[in-house]
């Protein structure tokens, strides 16, 4: 459903992604790990279509479409969802109104009528319950004054309402307390299905304990340097990234 081939991307003239490849099939969960600054969020931004990033080489196919040709909002409406590492605040716009606008845009794109008020409220309640989200947050301005954990949970709540085909979780686990982590993971697991693939960007094993990734990739210096099963994450947790660097060094000198 997602096929990234040899992607090169730069920002402000600085090359960040340097030939990254990744194949994701429907329903798979892929974890991406890697040191700070290795390009994980950059990859997320490039996939979501942030204009500041220039793709200089390579291709991305999403559900048979050339993803790079689509505008960010088209990508979203095609079913790509990015749970931001740093969600932004929008004063004066309630979470409810925001998500309603987003949902109806998506429905319009799909040729559906806007959801009527009753069905919309029902949907909101259901998803808020799933994520044990305090309902008062829904009437407050989007993310304004939300705690770090509340913001992250709100991202997953939006994902739940918008029902995407591909979700990218960019360090959704950071800032979550132990209970919130469990709730968010449970929410993601509930929404994960054979048609909903997930990319989990994380530094830690704890979220992966819940999500059970099919693949774990290590991103370093703008490309994926090692891939494996979920046991790779455990190995990384234990040894850090040094052993991979050493492996790389060896393969280079060999």
């Amino acid at each position, binding site marked *: 459903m997602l096929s990234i081939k040899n992607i090169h991307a730069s920002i402000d003239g600085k090359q960040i992604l340097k030939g990254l490849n990744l194949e994701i099939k429907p329903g798979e969960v892929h974890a991406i790990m890697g040191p700070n600054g290795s390009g994980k969020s950059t990859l997320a931004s490039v996939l979501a*279509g942030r204009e500041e990033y220039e793709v200089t080489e390579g291709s991305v196919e999403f559900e048979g479409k050339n993803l790079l040709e689509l505008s960010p909002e088209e990508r979203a409406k095609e079913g790509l969802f990015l749970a931001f590492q740093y969600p*932004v605040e929008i004063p004066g716009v309630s979470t409810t*109104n925001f998500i309603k606008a987003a949902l109806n845009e998506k429905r319009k794109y799909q040729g559906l009528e806007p959801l009527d008020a009753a069905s919309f409220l029902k949907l909101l309640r259901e998803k808020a319950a799933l994520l044990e989200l305090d309902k008062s947050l829904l009437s407050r301005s989007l993310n304004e004054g939300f705690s770090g954990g509340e913001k992250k949970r709100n991202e997953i709540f939006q994902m739940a309402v918008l029902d995407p085909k591909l979700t990218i979780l960019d360090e959704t686990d950071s800032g979550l307390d132990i209970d919130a982590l469990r709730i968010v993971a449970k929410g993601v697991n509930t929404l994960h299905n054979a048609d909903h693939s997930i990319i989990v960007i994380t530094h830690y094993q704890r979220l992966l304990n819940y999500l059970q990734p099919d693949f774990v990739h290590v991103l370093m210096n703008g490309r994926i340097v090692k891939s494996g099963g979920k046991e790779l994450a455990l190995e990384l947790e234990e040894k850090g990234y040094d052993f991979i660097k050493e492996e790389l060094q060896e393969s280079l000198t060999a």
Partner: protein
Amino acid sequence: MADEMQLLEERVNREYEYGFSTDIETDTAPKGLNEDIIRLISRKKHEPEWLLEWRLKAFRHWEKMTMPKWANLQYPEIDFQDIIYYAAPKTKKAKPGKLEEVDPELLKTLDKLGISLNEQKRLTGVAVDVVMDSVSVATTFQEQLAEKGIIFCAMSEAIQKHPDLLRRYLGTVVPMTDNFFAALNSAVFTDGSFCYIPKGVRCPMELSTYFRINKENSGQFERTLIIAEDGAYVSYLEGCTAPRRDENQLHAAIVEIVAMEHAEVKYSTVQNWYPGDDAGKGGIYNFVTKRGICKGNNSKISWTQVETGSAITWKYPSVILKGDNSIGEFYSVALTTKFQQADTGTKMHHIGKNTRSRIVSKGISAGKSQNSYRGLVKVAKTAENARNFSQCDSLLLGDKCGAHTFPYIESKNNTAVVEHEATTSKIGEDQLFYCEQRGLDAEKAVALIVTGFAKEVMNNLPMEFAVEAQKLLAVSLEGSVG
């Protein structure tokens, strides 16, 4: 981001939707201003002698005045001799009292403006007075209102039917000598609305006036007077549009409000005069004096304005808080795009004890526009425990526009508390991208962010107007608000 900025720019440069003019025969005075023109206006309107004298006095005073230069506005000298001071749509009768007597062309115009008087009559329960160029052309619901003793009619009608009331209050809140444009208006005002709510009456419906400039080279100088007697309440709405023309047209109105004891007047404006084209050509010069006096104790006057039109806006709806415990409010959204310039704000003059005022100003600048807030909070010696709170926020779209804040405070009473907060922000790329990632295109994203920014003010508009105002922001800013 370059594309986004471009999109933004295109969006704010949308065409003016109300830029049509109507082919209606008009009865027009020759260009220029002198005592004869004033006599002509007064004669056309069958005015009593005192009013003519009053006008002439204002004119003689105006001749000695010069245009104010202190505002943060730039525009060429206005040639006051190149303006038509009286233009009236020709109808069989001088003043149609009923809708049926209104020129069908005119009704078509009103329909285009979204003011279907018939619809209004049937459905919404909003009484409407329509002023086209210099003359009030239709007032609805008069009979129903009259049953409660409420007078809502054209100024010219009030001159005939309620001369004593008019004489008692006209020019008492905005004296003819108040400022250059007030003097000009006093000399040449042609029509406007008059509204009187008797003691203890709560006006059962929104009263609304629509102003429309149609005739070329004509100025519009309307005058509105609202009187709320003890314990009365009224919510008043004002809307305005003008056709697209290459020349600038002058609009210099006066609104006076008197609130007696325990009375409350809520005055809402959605100002959408033609703003001029993309090159800054044409557009209305809007110089307006609006002032209310909380004359009685415990009275309240609240101004809410959504300003999206005009090439130039010079406007400071103010409240004189004379009665003890009286309250003045000013809620404003001013949106400028293209080459528009707005210098708007308020003056809260605290005189009575325990008087309170609240100012919430939201300025949105886009294109190459300049948007200034200018506010004065004045506390007299007598104003024990006066309180003011001001919040002035500016939002910038793009980097070719400007936002400016000029708050002035003059306090002569040390028990008074005056608070001022101001912020300036830009729509962030992060905010836009976040919205886009959720499926909203840049246009809708901006609309959403702007709506959120203006929310506190929009919430103050009566329901009937909020939708329209919302729409207006959208039209001025982009295609549609989600």
